[in-house]
């Protein structure tokens, strides 16, 4: 949770807020200051609940769930950046971008280690390109983000279908697959990568001019324009970064599953949005939370583990996830008052 360097004032443009008071008011004030607390608290509750019924030790349980959450977290950072630019911005192309990028990465790797740098470069380039097209449609063509990114996602999916039907893919490189299983001092390599990516995004959002402009754009587009913050360019950049982060998650996913499959990105539509919402990032924009997105991704993974462990019926599982997300949205809406 050290990733949120300025938890006391997540929004640099709103330092003139009233001092916290007692009671419910102080709770909402605390939530506003540290939006990730809900997700962290809920995660801790689930882990405490799981400990006695789990047949593995607590550290194992936590680490393997954090590991699974790292993919969602990395792609979730991109969703967070896009959502934070406000005006209903959202990236619905992420699942399709991920599937496309897993194919690109594993096809270039071709089951060997010699093409790893090329595969990483090309995959991220494809991700950035998809993001750039999203940004172009939203910023220049002024298509609502929900429609534009869905359309771009549909195009990406169609490319995947053409690529996948060519056949004969050898799978991911052994070195990436080994990295997927490797750890440093017991901490999985992919978790370290997710945390490093999170740290970079945190610095970008909270310590750079781009971060200021991102928050400003999200809080009030018109004011940001008048203040010369170039909201269009900011929004476009957020989409490009989102594509790049989806590609990063895709490279790791390719190593994790040893190859590409058509459904590999599917779950990332709802999970990236949910991780962002559960983490306390405002869907209305202007208030990103990097630590929250990490915690939100972990909470989502733990929820699935919990329902799996309790052997809740499959329909009820989706119902529980939906209710949790709705509750988080409700809390988020309270915070805005």
């Amino acid at each position, binding site marked *: 949770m050290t990733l949120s360097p300025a938890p006391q004032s997540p929004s640099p443009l709103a330092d003139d807020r009233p001092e916290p008071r007692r009671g419910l008011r102080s709770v909402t004030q605390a939530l506003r200051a540290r939006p990730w607390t809900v997700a962290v608290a809920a995660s801790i509750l689930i882990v405490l609940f799981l400990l006695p*019924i789990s047949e593995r030790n607590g550290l194992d349980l936590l680490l393997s769930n954090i590991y699974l959450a790292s993919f969602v977290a990395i792609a979730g950072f991109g969703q967070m950046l896009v959502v934070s630019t406000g005006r209903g911005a959202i990236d619905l192309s992420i699942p399709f971008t991920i599937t496309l990028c897993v194919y690109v990465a594993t096809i270039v790797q071709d089951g060997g280690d010699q093409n790893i740098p090329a595969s990483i470069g090309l995959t991220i380039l494809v991700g950035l390109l998809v993001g750039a097209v999203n940004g172009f449609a939203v910023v220049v063509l002024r298509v609502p983000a929900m429609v534009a990114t869905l359309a771009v996602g549909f195009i990406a999916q169609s490319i995947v279908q053409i690529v996948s039907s060519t056949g004969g893919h050898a799978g991911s490189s052994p070195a990436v697959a080994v990295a997927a299983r490797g750890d440093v001092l017991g901490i999985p390599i992919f978790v370290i990568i997710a945390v490093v990516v999170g740290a970079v995004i945190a610095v970008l959002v909270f310590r750079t001019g781009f971060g200021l402009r991102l928050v400003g754009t999200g809080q009030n587009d018109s004011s940001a324009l008048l203040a010369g913050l170039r909201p269009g360019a900011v929004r476009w950049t957020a989409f490009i970064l989102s594509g790049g982060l989806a590609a990063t998650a895709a490279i790791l996913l390719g190593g994790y599953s040893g190859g590409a499959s058509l*459904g590999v990105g599917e779950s990332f539509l709802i999970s990236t949005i949910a991780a962002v919402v559960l983490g306390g990032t405002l869907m209305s924009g202007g208030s990103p939370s990097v630590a929250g997105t990490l915690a939100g991704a972990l909470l989502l993974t733990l929820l699935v583990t919990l329902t799996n462990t309790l052997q809740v019926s499959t329909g009820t599982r989706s119902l529980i996830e939906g209710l949790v997300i709705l509750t988080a949205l409700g809390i988020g809406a309270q915070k805005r008052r």
Partner: protein
Amino acid sequence: MKIGKISRVLVPIAFVSALALSGCSASSAGTSSADAATSAGSIVLSNSFIGNAWRQTMVDDVNKSAAAAKAAGQASDLKVVNSNNDVAEQISQIQSLILDKPKVILLLAASPTALNGVIQTACDAGIKVVAFDASVTAPCAYKMAPDWVKFGHETMKVVADKMGGKGNVVLVHGVVGTDVDLGMYQGWNEELKSNYPNIKIVGEVNGNWDDATTQSAISGALSTAGKVDGVMAYVSSYGVTQAFAAANLPIPVVYGSNQGTFLKWWAEQNKANGYSTESAMEGPAISQAAYWIGVNLANGKEFDKNLVYPTFKITDATVAEVSAKTANDAFADQTWDEASVLKQWPAK
């Protein structure tokens, strides 16, 4: 304004002439299929979805059979229409197919019940409907699919016996709510309940018949589960093995998938340490069997309405040979020609 007026006149003209042209081509197609009808009728395929490897192979497979039938003068070209997993779209596609008066409609349905009305319309128009893979409830349709409950029983028995009749098992769901998943799940549970009281279900996860989804679901389950001795999966078995490998756990008895990735892994493990399992799947070549049934229906032969489809089974004895012939992302499968179809399902 002037341009607007002109276009207002021109567009309908273009539209009408396009209609007339398509009418001409349709009628010319009509005569050619009438010619062909003396030897065999025209056959069309309405496919609900084309977005995964299985469906793509399914269409490739049926086209191979159609090419063979055409070369032998048994049928005219096969027309394939795909809808985007959209019931309404498939219904309207079938309605327009009915207007072409084919002899047989092969159908991979998007819904077991929603297409019943349009299927009945086709039957009333004298068109035979062969629904394969995804079952439909319309009584006039011929139905070709495996018996999934029986499949569940048989596969559970294989895994349970390899587990020595005791231990912990994890069940992997496919696409929840499909009759395939429901039937298989029922078979697994019934088999355990009646014959294997010492096997305990310690987890149920959703794998969506996708390797990556299954792997992540199993990894999550393994974060709390104790010892797992067996896993029941369908299609996404490779994802199961990868989850155990990623957790550095020994790999239990996993019911196999006919996908190249799993077969290759199984063949290597079998050679290295005697890893033993079995694998079976309803392969995409079911479209070939349905096609040859369709050709024979068009030629006036009659069949049972319920055509139980045999899955393609692979064992420890055959895995080395089969995996060598199967590409990573392809399915090992059987092929059907007219003779083998008529042997499996004799005409009445």
